[in-house]
């Protein structure tokens, strides 16, 4: 996957004053995938995206996007990247049509059909003024403006934020439509785990400036497991178990969530002498929340290579 990476960073770090916003980020995004970038508010997602696009210089570390150094991105490289910001910056006095005409001037490769298609998908009128548009309509317009130049790499910073269910569905449909071209990569940040489940091939999770997960969605779901141990008396104290990320204690019961769950983990759990031991099904949200919970070991990262047994 190395030669095919459209985004790659090594030790990418950014401080604001004494506070690290992104710490030692090693990210690799393969070409042609849909990559979800997750983390709580303030975990450093937008800061790292801005560094990737050359809009903010790193304190240290390095990165490349479409094979070019992020500290020196030329306009022709930028033109191959579509970037949708959280804020949907537009001129209020323009009409939808004028926005399209204005934007098209900056791109040699402007596909009017795509622009019209997205606009239509969001039910936007070409004559409508930007200042009269709803949040969902602005999102649709921005998406159209971002997609029309047919970017090789699409970077969407929290595109679902504030969208009503219909606009939201249109957004996800547009993302799926884009996967028609197998060489197009979508990198998006989000809090919507349902979207992630629908569209993502890979996920990365930032937790307080530090990358904690970077692997395929399937690997993530397979390696995070919760087990319920029942005891006839009081459960014993929980020893150090590799990969333990969350432990709940109840009457005669322990519920443990582990990453890299394998036969070693199972042996360690059996050694606690439970009367009964059974897996608890976890949905993506459960797995994600236990990962970002306050308890548990924080010192490791779940990546594709480490996940192999």
């Amino acid at each position, binding site marked *: 996957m190395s030669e095919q990476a459209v985004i790659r960073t090594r030790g990418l770090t950014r401080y604001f004053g004494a506070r690290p916003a992104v710490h030692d980020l090693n990210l690799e995004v393969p070409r042609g995938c*849909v990559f979800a970038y997750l983390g709580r508010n303030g975990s450093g997602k937008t800061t790292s995206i801005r560094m990737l696009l050359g809009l903010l210089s790193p304190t240290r570390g390095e990165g490349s996007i479409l094979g070019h150094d992020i500290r020196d991105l030329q306009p022709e490289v930028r033109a191959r990247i579509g970037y949708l910001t959280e804020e949907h910056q537009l001129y209020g006095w323009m009409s939808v049509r004028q926005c399209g005409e204005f934007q098209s001037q900056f791109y040699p490769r402007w596909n009017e059909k795509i622009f019209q298609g997205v606009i239509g998908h969001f039910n936007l009128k070409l004559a409508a003024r930007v200042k009269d548009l709803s949040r969902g309509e602005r999102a649709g317009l921005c998406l159209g403006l971002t997609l029309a130049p047919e970017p090789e790499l699409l970077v969407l910073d929290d595109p679902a934020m504030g969208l009503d269910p219909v606009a939201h*569905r249109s957004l*996800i*449909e547009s993302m*799926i*439509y884009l*996967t*028609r071209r197998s060489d197009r990569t979508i990198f998006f940040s989000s809090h919507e*785990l*349902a979207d992630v*489940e*629908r*569209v*993502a*091939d890979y996920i990365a999770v930032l937790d307080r400036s530090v990358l904690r997960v970077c692997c395929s969605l*399937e690997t993530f*779901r397979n390696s995070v497991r919760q087990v319920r141990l029942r005891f006839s008396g009081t459960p014993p104290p929980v020893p150090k178990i590799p990969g333990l990320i969350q432990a709940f204690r109840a009457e005669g019961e322990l519920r443990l969530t582990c990453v890299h769950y394998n036969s070693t983990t199972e042996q360690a759990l059996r050694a606690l002498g439970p009367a009964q031991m*059974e897996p608890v*099904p*976890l*949905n*993506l*949200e459960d797995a994600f929340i236990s990962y970002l919970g306050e308890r548990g070991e924080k010192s490791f990262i779940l990546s594709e290579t480490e996940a192999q047994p």
Partner: protein
Amino acid sequence: MTINLNINTGANTPIYRQITDQVRLAVAAGKLAVDDPLPSIRALAERLVINPNTVARAYADLQREGLIESRAGRGVFATRKRKMFTREEGWRRLEPLLDAVIGEAMVLDFTPPELREAFEKKLGQWKSAKGGEKS
């Protein structure tokens, strides 16, 4: 007849497994017969609003199991289920499922006779579904 597939996000089961489970069930219940068509990967992905790779992953699993096959230029079809597992292997796969059902039933305070009766009843429903749809 064609199969109506649905998915839920937020479920304990990953989406690709929701698809494979539904197809397996439809085949077992006779709702999907040999040569019945399935939607193409792209069409199903767009209808369910999910990543086509997820559908491809599900179809690959089903193909490996011999439940469906892709015919060049014509689409994806249900096939006659080839015998994939030895009897022994079949039992090895079935046993934990039986254990899970019985265990859950015990926790929920069902008695063995009740359980036996429910099992017979279900079995009857499956038989009639299999016989009723196609003949």
